[in-house]
């Protein structure tokens, strides 16, 4: 392999090389330092005069005397079933002291788009045991459902609880967890690892760690390595794979850094204009394929800068993912765990995975009714602060109490409390029954007669 010593410029993570032979776009590059260390990079721009290489690590030590080797191929990831139970760096190298992975296949990490015609429709209800998810923002297999959180909130606990408790009731199929950390602290990473070890989940997991002190630019490839692995496990080995990506905010920061180094025209708040497309190429790598057994379900976690849901990172994410679970500082302050605010939360695939034959026929309407009641009760809190409780009508007073009940009974649960979907729905009915029946306008009569505690067969006998 030819080695060039024609570096003309180094700026941030970018190295500019003048060269003699034609280099492919997106080709993998090795830069050899004078002490023999090798740094990896990728071609971002290629022409017969100049090649721009993005280095995945720091450019410390790279100079005019460094050698540049073009490998002639795009970045590939060696994959195999032996990856389960392994811990890899954010660049895909084993860091658990174990042997190199014996590849069964080498796959392009960019990952081609699933042909929409080949997609299978997600429909399998995943029970997470968390009422605010199962009851009101149901997760289904093959969905991409991010957690929108903010600094200092217990999103890691929520993610871990999901990873631990998630199951498809009545199914014992092969599952696996792919965990990709991008720029999180060693302490946070340990927290995840210890929980994985405690519950034995590590055996069924592949872990990629790019920590806060690891090179920022490497974060660009970490989720792609993780998803390439997940796709292999799912679509070639037939497993149901849950992918946790944390923290996508750090990923986007790395993207912004590269954009700035390339002197691109920035989009909103300095993030590149193509961030939507770039994120879509990550998040869309979830789903099912017709005729294949496995599935890829994604739970990306991101921290909203300044708790602002309109910030480009949560905003663009929300435009791509199939809903979002929003962790709220206000509920957290009230001491409620999991502090999930259902109002801005959403699961768009919920309707496919619930109802008769999936969960229970009353699921959708119970959920809608709780939303309506909680939203209205929550609004009234503002009013009460001004006019006092006494100025409220009877209807409003009940709604106000409903909002409190909803937070304290339905939202609040233990870190290890694993509620079945029946528990969750019955709990829903229980708190809804504090409202007058005629106020349950979202639910049809038949369902009320069948499930409402006051009308249920047992209750009628009284």
């Amino acid at each position, binding site marked *: 392999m030819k080695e060039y010593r024609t570096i003309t410029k180094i700026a941030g993570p970018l190295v500019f090389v003048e060269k003699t032979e*034609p*280099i*492919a*776009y997106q080709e993998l590059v090795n830069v050899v330092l004078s002490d023999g260390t090798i740094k990896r990079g990728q071609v*971002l*721009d*290629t*022409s017969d005069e100049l090649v*721009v290489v993005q280095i995945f690590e720091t450019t410390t030590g790279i100079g005019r005397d460094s050698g540049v080797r073009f490998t002639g191929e*795009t970045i590939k990831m060696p994959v195999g079933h032996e990856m389960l139970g392994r811990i890899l760096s954010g660049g895909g190298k084993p860091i658990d002291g174990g042997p190199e992975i014996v590849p069964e296949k080498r796959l*392009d990490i*960019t990952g*081609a*788009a*699933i*042909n*929409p*015609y*080949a*997609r299978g*429709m997600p429909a399998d209800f995943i029970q997470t045991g968390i009422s605010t998810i199962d009851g009101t923002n149901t997760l289904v297999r*093959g969905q991409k459902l991010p957690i929108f959180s903010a600094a200092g909130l217990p999103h890691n606990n929520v993610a871990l609880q999901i990873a631990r408790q998630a199951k498809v009731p009545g199914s014992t199929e092969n599952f696996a967890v792919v965990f990709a950390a991008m720029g999180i602290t060693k302490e946070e990473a340990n927290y995840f690892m210890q929980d994985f070890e405690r519950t034995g989940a590590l055996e069924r997991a592949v872990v990629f760690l790019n920590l806060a002190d690891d090179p920022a630019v490497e974060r660009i490839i970490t989720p792609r390595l993780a998803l390439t692995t997940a796709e292999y496990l799912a679509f070639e080995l037939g497993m149901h794979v849950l992918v946790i990506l944390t923290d996508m905010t750090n990923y986007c920061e790395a993207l912004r850094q590269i954009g700035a180094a390339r002197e691109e*025209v*920035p989009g*909103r708040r300095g993030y590149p*204009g*193509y961030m*939507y*497309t770039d994120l*879509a*190429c990550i998040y*869309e*790598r979830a*789903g099912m394929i*017709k005729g*294949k057994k496995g599935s890829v379900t994604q739970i990306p976690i991101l921290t909203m800068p300044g708790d602002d849901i*309109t910030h480009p990172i949560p*905003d*663009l994410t*929300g*435009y*791509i993912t*199939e809903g*979002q679970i929003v962790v709220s500082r206000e509920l957290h302050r009230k001491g409620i765990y999991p502090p999930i605010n259902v109002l*801005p939360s959403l699961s768009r*695939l919920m*309707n*496919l995975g619930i109802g008769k034959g999936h969960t229970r026929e009353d699921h959708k309407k119970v959920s*809608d009714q709780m*939303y*309506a009641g909680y*939203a209205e009760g929550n609004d009234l809190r*503002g*009013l009460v602060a001004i*006019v006092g409780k006494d*100025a409220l*009508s009877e209807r409003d007073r009940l709604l106000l109490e409903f909002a409190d009940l909803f937070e304290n009974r339905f939202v609040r649960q233990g870190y290890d409390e694993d509620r079945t979907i029946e528990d969750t729905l019955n709990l829903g009915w229980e708190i809804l029954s504090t409202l007058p029946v005629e106020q349950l*306008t979202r639910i*049809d*009569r038949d369902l009320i007669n069948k499930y409402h505690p006051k009308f249920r067969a047992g209750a009628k006998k009284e």
Partner: protein
Amino acid sequence: MKTEKTKEAKKGVLKRIAGPVVTAVNLDAHMYDVVKVGKEALMGEVIKIQGDNTIIQVYEDTSGIRPGEPVINTGLSLSVELGPGLLTSIYDGIQRPLAVLVEKMGNFIERGVTAPGLSHTKKWTFKPLVKAGDKIEPGSILGEVQETNIVHRVMLPPNVKAGVVKTIRSGDFTIDEIICILEDGREYPMIQRWPVRVPRPVREKKNPTIPLITGQRILDGLFPIAKGGTAAIPGPFGSGKTVTQQQLAKWSDAEIVVYIGCGERGNEMTEVLTEFPSLEDPKSGKPLMERTVLIANTSNMPVAAREASVYTGITIAEYFRDMGYDVSLMADSTSRWAEAMREISSRLEEMPGEEGYPAYLAARLSEFYERAGLVETLNGASGSVSVIGAVSPPGGDFSEPVTQNTLRIVKVFWALDAKLSQRRHFPAINWLNSYSLYLDALHDWYDKEVSPDWNKIRSWAMEVLQKEAELQEIVQLVGSDALPESEQVTIEVARMIREIFLQQNAYDAVDTFCDMKKQYDMLKAIKLFADFAYAAQIAGVSPSQIIAVKAKNELPQIKFIKDYKPELAKIEKEMDAEFNTLRSAA
């Protein structure tokens, strides 16, 4: 996808590759020529010419392509194939059938594979409608093919000379076989090709007068769009753009539906593909898929093809319009299309306009919406294309360029509101900010087809809602009990309008579609309650007694009942009785 015109093919060499935009040298090219890039012959389009450099946007992933590889100019412009076989198809942004791509390259979209938009081997039964000696004009109907339950009218292309039929064939043909020969020797098969960036000609554009009935109460009832009209539906993520667009695709009384998933989710297209074949058109009882053409260029598919997807879609829509059909086209989302323009433009290092969008954003948007309309076609028929574009403003802020430039063009604005969607008020269309500029044009239709008092009841409902918004401001300060009695009644009536009439559950088997008759009956029942209530209030009945009237609590159930008439009559009778009792007690 094949192409129009024939010029001599020219060969150049790739000089630079940076993402979806590449530069070639020594290539003889014209703007918008289709070229084949690199050894794998990836499809691309010329978008800029500068000195010896030809700049090309590539419709497929460019990873692994090297400088020095060849570029071949086909000399043709980006076109779609038009003919029998379009219906029920699902295409990518450049009309490659996704089903064929699965066959050719498996579950993932790889590259370098071409596939024609239509099947060139399938035979269709062609029934001529002209005979030898007939004089035919551009756009004239030559005959028809029963494509699905829809009749496909085969036309003379619009851009050719008139002529006289010498031979017309009848029987089973592929789209390439000649079915018509003219006296001057010209021969025509069923297929025609049309460059996507050029609107298909019509005889005359007319002003719309008939609503596109969608079965969605807030749309048909309050903010209707006309057949041949344009509407925008902007809203933050998760507010209901896609669900609304899909509801229109399912239930609107268009004869043909073109649905463009432009830079959105793969699963949403799969949902349409899975759901539509089993849904029936409420009017014809035929599977909805049979009138539908889908274009799916999802967010992770190449951006250049995303840019092309809306043109591919609207050209297909115009083609069916030319047969005399009412076509409705949904584009979800036009913001992703605009972003594709922005991305390409920034790679061209063009001077950016507002928020990095190219300076020609407004022009492209208006050219696109201008292709909608009610027309007299070249063959004298009446056809229409209605265009409904979703807009995805960053942060849900409508002041951004795509929303603003769209609002300057479209006639109907359905403003989605995160506050409503968060409380699961669906469709989350804000009734105070939304508008339809077709109300006057459609006035007579509603008058004749729905009821002579429809327009009056509609205005009444809008007034109540407007009034409620004013009252709510006061309530927020002093509580509802402090309002005068008549206004407490107004608040209750407004609540009924919102919860009973405006809220509509897309996922309920019955409520998902509500015909005009039922819409009228529902709104009329609420008005009946209001009339009783104000009369009772004047007679001295207290607002709390009025609000406690039991019969009205049954009204929301009407939504979920298919044969709602008996139940509605019963409720109205009970309401009357209850108010009678209240009045006599007062």
